[in-house]
């Protein structure tokens, strides 16, 4: 019963965060959601048998189901890798890199990928990037 409530609380928190504008909050929502799903998997193994599946001859009457545990173990690591990836996305997105947010009023913009939003960046960074591009152009032009 408590485990089910825990899952419910986590899902509610995750659902709330996933609906926020801030990418970091969305990512935290994802983390909570992965916790919820992992605990749900553990619940599938049952909460009345709580012995550890270790040793030469574990007693099936009191030992926890090892299969959900194995699933959850790998799920944790995968979720971790995806969280890292999402965090990287949060700091490299085209319009949100400086603010970490989605700018308000973007709902109607049909071309979210347009690069002209780069002007949100700090001036220094922008010049750096253009400099790099120029070098490459010159390099290509000078190749016979």
């Amino acid at each position, binding site marked *: 019963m408590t485990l089910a409530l825990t899952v419910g609380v986590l899902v509610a928190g995750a659902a709330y965060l996933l609906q926020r504008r801030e990418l970091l909050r969305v990512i935290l929502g994802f983390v909570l959601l992965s916790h919820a799903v992992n605990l749900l998997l553990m619940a599938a193994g049952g909460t009345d048998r709580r012995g550890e599946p270790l040793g030469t001859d574990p007693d099936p009457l009191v030992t926890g189901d090892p299969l959900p545990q194995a699933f959850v173990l790998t799920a944790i690591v995968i979720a971790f890798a995806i969280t890292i990836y999402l965090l990287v996305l949060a700091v*490299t997105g085209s319009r949100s890199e400086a603010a970490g947010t989605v700018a308000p009023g973007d709902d109607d913009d049909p071309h979210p990928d347009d690069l002209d939003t780069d002007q949100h960046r700090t001036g220094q960074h922008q010049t750096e990037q253009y400099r790099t591009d120029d070098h490459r152009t010159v390099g290509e032009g000078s190749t016979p």
Partner: protein
Amino acid sequence: MSLGLAIGGAWALVAAAPLLTRVLGRRAGWLLAACLLGLTALVVSARSTGDVQAEYAWMPTIGVSLRLRLDGLSFLFALVVLVVGALVLVYSSSYVRTRTSGFFTLMTGFVAAMLLLVLADDLVVLFVAWELTTLCSYLLVLRSGSRAGAPATRVLLVTAAGGLSLLGAVAVMVVRTGTTHLTAVLEHPAWQQDPTFAGTVAVLVAFAAMTKSAQMPFHSWLPDAMVAPAPVSAYLHAAAMVKAGIFLLMLLAPGASASALWTPLLLTVGLTTSVVGGLFALQRTDLKELLAYSTVSQLGLLVAVIGVGTSGAMLAASVHVVAHALFKSAAFMSVGLIETRTGSRDIRELRGLWRAMPGDSLMLVLTAASMAALPPLLGFVSKELVLDAMLHSPAGAVTGWVTALVVTAGAVLTVAYSLRMLVTTLPGPAAQVTPWRTTVPMSLAIGTAAVGGLVLGLAVPLLDAVAAPAAAVAAGVPVADVYPLALWHGLNAALALSAVAILGGVGLTVARHRVDRVLVGRALLPFTGAQVVQRCYEGAIALGRRVGDVTRSDQPAAHLALPLAGVGAAGVLVAMLWQGVPAGSTQPLDVALLAALALGVVIVARAGSRLTSVIAVGVVGFAVVLWFLVLGASDVALTQLLVEILTVVVMVLVLRRMPPRFAPEPRRRHVGSLVISVAAGVAATLATLTFTGHRGLSQVGEFFLREAKTLTGGTNVVNTILVDFRALDTLGELVVLAIGALAVTALLDARPAAPRADVALLDSPVADPHRNALFLQVLDRALVPVMLAASLYALLRGHNAPGGGFIAALVGAAALVLAYLAAPTDAVSRLERPFLSIAGAGVVVAVGTGLLGLLDGSFLRPLHVDVLGLHLTSALLFDVGVYLAVLGVVLAAIHRLGLSPSDDARREADADADWRAVEDEEVGAR
């Protein structure tokens, strides 16, 4: 056996073509042509020795195998494909200019695909070969120049649409008859018993064939494809690929003709195409376009005569396939030669070809005569047969005469446009011709095809052995029922109609100026086929954009609200399945954990500061760790604990690049999402209570608990599942981790991360990086070696006690992260590790261990060895792979996100320098 050899040989040729062209250049065409003739000999010997079936296992579980068979029909088409293919390759050895390697590879690829198509005795193989021909044609058109993009796309779209139709037909046939074996499918009684089935297949197959064989209204791709070079047009768009549709119709006619739709559909479409195609051809002044529409028209004639379906009609179709392949490929090759020598292929510009190139002109005359069905050429024989078949149509004398007269009308136009190719271009003073490397191969190929039409016309009984069995198969009658071929059939109605056609055509040619005034440059229809296809194509894309507009938003909420509301609504459904709270023991600690966790969730949701929310998520994470622990999952708890620590580190690195506080949001948004969230949470709780905890230990779980020690020698059951029982899952997961490392790196390479906000610190010891890091540096020196040792220990003991690759790697990563954090500045960070190589090595080690398992009969089966009383298993090696993959992804994140903006700039400068160095090297090499 020979058939398998022929198919294998053809594909081996495709593989060898790039190498051959590299060594021999254009001359590889000769060698490839010789090889095709060798394959022809193989097929002929297979036919004569009766070695006409082969079967190789392909997808045994669904009953699909690589079945091949060589009956009369496939023999005829195999000969056309191989012999014309050889001629065209010889021609190409002189014709092609640049990028020969790709050209020869694709051409031989097309030969191989076509051969597979005609020999296939399995519907799935047939479909695959059909699509391969489409693909080769698309690529061959596409590579023929910068203007070829749009036409190539249209070619692909139209022919691929036909492919989908064929797929539908194949699916219907397989489902209804229960087999993919083509011979068995055609013998199935369902064709006669089930008119709906026969009708569906007939329409789908007819549609597929009509797109492939360029029938109205799908003909537009063929003139479009004329941007391709002459050999491609001669082979794909005259002799082979467009004949695939004809082959399909003849192949499935024994079954599909049971439908009442078959004959009217094919006759209407075929005859219309034949006449309208002829009219279009008469309008053209570009020789290649003229020939393209002529092909459309001739294919229409073939479709119509197949629709008649009698053995005489199928004989006519078989002979006309050969005649058309010869004269049309020769015509296309001639036009290619003329264009190469004179620089033009426009009737209005070409003059005096006879004096300039008499031999080639003679061949063009022979070709045009065969096309115009003048005696004694093969085209005449086949046209006679077609007229005769129409007149003896089983549909009755009236239909027979009407169709025969329409064919005659088409024939008038054919004669007119065939003569039109000659009357103005040949006479006159010798044309200016530019020298070209040897044209002998071109003239040889054209001559062989053109003279072939003459010889086979004069000695047409030679064709009996090939055409009659093909007709018998297509008509579903014994070979003996097909009457023999002859040049002269006596004075009959068909001959009279032929004479009318020739006279009419000559008449139109004499009055050609008047005809030209009526036809040339005038649009017969208010639109062209290409425009229609283009319009449909653009319309489909516009429609897709309109559909996409509904969901095109940057707001995560816009995409998530609906599914989340769905989750909430699912709660109602779950409530209907309610079976009471499961009997699970609740312990006091559980309640405490729930309380701590709920508190954490509320703080995360309410926090205005980013750091607060990250810390609160950490609190939730630790509560979850304890949950795992009280549930008896110590391995899982350990993993979660380490992941929590590392997640916080990575998040902090990201936080440096974001403003410290979240932007405020309007209140009304909170209320709506709060309602949805609570609904989702309630649904999740109800679902957990309903779907879990109502049964005892799962059978699988019990099996693992009982047998793990016996089967794997390990006593940590969870670990044995990961590295032994379900190692394939784990392999998939560690590949995901390696991809994660790759993706993080690629993403940060493509778009640099947002610059780090410079936090102004007070002038205190904390502000000085060196003094600030002192505490951690001391810890680092003491702890890192211990942690690395612990990591190794966890890895080694994982099979028998809590530990294993995941946990060990996370401990190791934590040690390296500590070392990183202890460094006073990013610049002197000691984390310059080749993280991508590490992650890649993980995958390699894991896969290698898996392959080692093959020694014991199965991928990923662990091997067990006892060395000096110590039990060793290759599962440990697999765990090393897991270890490396996990380490790789953590290092990638720390290293790439840990860089400060100044480091970013330095790195970019380095990359720039590398780029220049590479370029200098390239320049130097040249």
